[in-house]
């Protein structure tokens, strides 16, 4: 682990990625301490201001400090990314291993489920769900979990299938090892590498999706700050002030860049085989 970290910091892009990610994660965690203002406090007198010493990124149409809103928005983005990718990863690993190791008919059912989900364009699926269930952060998380499960599940299934036929697994099986032991001790560690890379490459997509849905007013409810809803404010105010758009997009672009750089150098380190395929 420390070795991986050291090698990442030796690569310029990996280092930049790591710094960006750490910076934004820390600023989001410490939002309550760092933020100069309450992110939902109204201050109509100071509305629509440009950046100044008092308001680093200016204020929005209700006089809320954009810098504070951006910091708190980071909490929403990271929360969504962590919960949804964590859940999707666990369910995906489980289903993938069951599909790879279980009976044929179960495999077919699970693959059918994966293919069905993948046949929708993600955003369309998200919008349809939000339209039915109503906009909320939980809906967004649920949609992301459901649509990401196949990504992980498929990788795990393929890996499980290829490991299953190895001789050491057969030997283990012959010696009477339980299914849980085989899956937990032999299969799981072998699929973890590709999964970590996949997850770190998925984080920017998930964050962008959350921001996108919040931008459409289908994510977090106002007045909770999210990068997407700040951008939405910016869109409605586009003829008055550029600052909400700039404030909302900076962290979004930085964090997607950070995670992508980090994911790419992780991939190069852990799995040189994958380097060619993307």
């Amino acid at each position, binding site marked *: 682990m420390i070795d991986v970290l050291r090698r990442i910091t030796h690569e310029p892009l990996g280092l930049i990625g790591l710094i960006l990610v750490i910076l934004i994660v820390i600023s989001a965690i410490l939002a309550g301490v760092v933020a100069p203002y309450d992110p939902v406090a109204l201050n109509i007198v100071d509305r629509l201001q440009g950046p100044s010493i008092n308001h680093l990124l200016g204020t929005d149409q209700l006089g809320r400090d954009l810098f504070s809103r951006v910091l708190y928005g980071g909490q929403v983005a990271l929360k969504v990314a962590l919960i949804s990718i964590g859940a999707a990863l666990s369910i995906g690993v489980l289903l993938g291993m069951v599909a790879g190791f279980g009976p044929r008919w179960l495999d077919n059912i699970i693959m059918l489920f994966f293919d069905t989900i993948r*046949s929708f364009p993600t955003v369309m699926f998200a919008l349809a769900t939000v339209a039915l269930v109503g906009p909320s952060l939980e809906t967004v998380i649920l949609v992301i979990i459901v649509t990401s499960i196949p990504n992980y599940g498929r990788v795990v299934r393929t890996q499980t299938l290829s490991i299953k036929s190895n001789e050491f697994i057969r030997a283990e099986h012959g010696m009477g090892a339980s299914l849980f032991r085989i899956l937990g001790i032999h299969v799981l560690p072998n699929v973890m590498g590709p999964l970590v890379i996949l997850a770190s490459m998925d984080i920017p997509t998930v964050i*962008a999706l959350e921001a996108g849905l919040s931008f459409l007013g289908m994510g977090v409810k106002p007045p909770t700050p999210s990068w997407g809803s700040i951008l939405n404010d910016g869109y409605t105010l*586009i003829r008055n002030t550029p600052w909400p758009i700039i404030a909302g997009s900076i962290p979004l672009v930085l964090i997607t860049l950070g995670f992508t750089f980090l994911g790419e150098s992780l991939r190069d380190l852990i799995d040189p085989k994958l380097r060619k395929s993307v």
Partner: protein
Amino acid sequence: MLAVTLLYCMIHMVPGDPARILLGPRATPELIASMSARMGLDLPLPVQILRFFGNLFRGDLGMDVITNRPVADIVFGQLPYTLWLIFTAIVFAALIGIPLGCYSALHRNSLADRISGVLSVACITAPAFVVALYSLLVFAVTLHWFPAVGAGEKGAFWDQVSHLVLPAFAIGLSWIGYLARLVRASMLEVMGENHIRTARAYGLAERTVVYRYALKLAILPTVTVIGVGMGFLLSAALFTEIVFARPGIGKLIFDSITTRNYPVVMGSVLVSTALFVISTTLSDLINAWLDPRIRASL
């Protein structure tokens, strides 16, 4: 097909009767009952699904409950706008991305290659709606170079073109990076293959080798990627259409969701999903047609 059934069940599993939502809180029970009957909601769910599929095969997507027009008319009226937008974006991305990737592969590890590599990643990660917002802010609102809203007057060609520039740019930008990386990678692979060495050994000019032999093969994966990427393209188109208030299937979905016009939501999501599936299949076919090696194995 399964996807459609799932979607249909999902719509009907949620609490809240569409007829009730449509008519508002003050509707009388009789009115709701007659509305439900008109929408076919009083039938049991399996019957509804069968009826829906029956109509589907006749090209009937149902009626829009608000304007009383056939949903198919509405959806297919909006579809060309989206298709043009996606097509322009892809052509734009290909025109820049493919030469860029080609150049990077031929000048591997040069400074230009490294810069274009980092820029490509940056382009890929930029979400389409953020790019759309910025291009709207910079080129339409501040500089007034291009119009901000709509798709232009019908029949006025240049007007429509100028309305297409910014949205296509917003969608195409991430694809420039994507295609550049892809072409670079596959170009490097192809250049190492035997037939390229043979072509060189025959004494063909480097230009001929690169453009007639190598590039022709290196472009193949882009076809697949564009086909599979249709889902991303449609999603990006949805955001861009909303930002630029352009007519199109994405805006249709969004608008019908905000007005809770379920038949239109169904119809438009259905058509875009179909588009996604068709384009994936089509890209496989085109690939087989382009690549003699796959053609032979069919």
